[in-house]
């Protein structure tokens, strides 16, 4: 009986030992697996951290690049704005030059005196913007300004102006323009009706004057283009009037000579 009990206990101990041993082996195997997994996870973590760092660097680089692009965009916009302004300026210059070219071309495009005078009127009305104007020429004796064309004024008042008399007469003597905005000729009583008076000159000799008495209501004042036009008128209108005057005299002389020839033939 004791033997059997002893045997049974021995077998039980043996079984427990074996199971413990197996359990310990299983635990160790499991442990090994976990260790491998932990190692793999750690490796993954390191890789993930490296990737994270790389991504952060990339983001930082992109951010810098973006900031740089934004700065460049602002620069380009400023540049673009400046080009647009420059373009407008050039277009304005072109337009101004076109005006000056047209004025010069039109003044020298004819030898007909009446046409030259109407071109001067057209220029003042349409390009300078005045509908009250007068064109004078110095008479042959050199003592008066004679009104040769006018628009929108009482012409009787300005028919003959003695040289040196009033602003217009003084401009013809002095040979320098009067511009109301810029004043000048302070010693004389200012004529509130006169916006500008431009001497017509051939070299240094004054041959006439152009007087402008008002500007169109929509025109706030004279600008740089107007001053250029005044300069151009001063010389080119004088030359055109002078040439057309010679042409007219030649025509008259031609007619007289023809008439004389005819009279000789008839007699």
């Amino acid at each position, binding site marked *: 009986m004791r033997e059997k009990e002893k045997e049974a206990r021995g077998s039980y101990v043996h079984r427990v030992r074996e199971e413990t041993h197996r359990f310990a082996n299983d635990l160790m195997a499991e442990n090994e697996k976990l260790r491998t997994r932990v190692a793999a996870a750690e490796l993954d973590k390191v890789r993930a951290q490296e990737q994270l760092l790389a991504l952060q660097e990339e983001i930082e680089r992109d951010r810098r690049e973006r900031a740089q692009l934004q700065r460049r965009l602002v620069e380009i916009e400023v540049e673009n704005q400046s080009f647009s302004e420059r373009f407008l300026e050039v277009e304005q210059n072109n*337009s101004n030059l*076109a005006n000056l070219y047209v004025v010069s071309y039109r003044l020298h495009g004819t030898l007909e005196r009446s046409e030259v005078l109407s071109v001067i009127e057209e220029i003042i009305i*349409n390009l300078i913007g005045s*509908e009250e104007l007068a064109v004078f020429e110095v008479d042959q004796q050199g003592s008066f300004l004679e009104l040769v064309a006018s628009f929108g004024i009482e012409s009787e008042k300005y028919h003959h102006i003695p040289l040196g008399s009033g602003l217009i007469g003084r401009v013809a003597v002095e040979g320098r323009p009067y511009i109301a905005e810029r004043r000048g000729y302070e010693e004389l009583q200012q004529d509130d009706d006169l916006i500008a008076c431009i001497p017509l000159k051939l070299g240094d000799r004054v041959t006439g004057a152009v007087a402008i008495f008002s500007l*169109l209501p929509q025109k706030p004042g004279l600008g740089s283009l107007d001053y250029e036009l005044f300069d151009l008128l001063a010389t080119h209108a004088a030359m055109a009037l002078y040439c057309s005057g010679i042409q007219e005299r030649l025509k008259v002389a031609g007619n007289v000579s023809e008439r004389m020839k005819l009279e000789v033939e008839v007699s």
Partner: protein
Amino acid sequence: MRKKVLIVDDAATIVMMERMILGKTYEVVTARNGLEAVEKAVAEQPDLILLDVVMPMLGGIETCRQLREKAETRGIPIIMVSTRSELESVEASYESGCSDYVTKPINGLELLSKVKSFIGN
């Protein structure tokens, strides 16, 4: 094909100046008075008309009315050009059927931009 602009003005100086401003971008045809303008508008079928208000024979306002009455020219944009800036003159022009109104002295840039706004480049 370039768009076509009909310039109508009795002042040759203005015609020449407008031609210089618009000629780079558009084909330009011209007329010296209202009667010629109506004939040219029918024959040339311009894309836009620049019409002076004060002209001999047939003034700008009457010309504009006639152009609006004709089926062939009814749809053409008309920009009136005038030295007159008074309200009555502007109103009379719009009543005659013009599309826009520009006062003299003409600013080249302003004119070009107005024309562009109607017919493009």
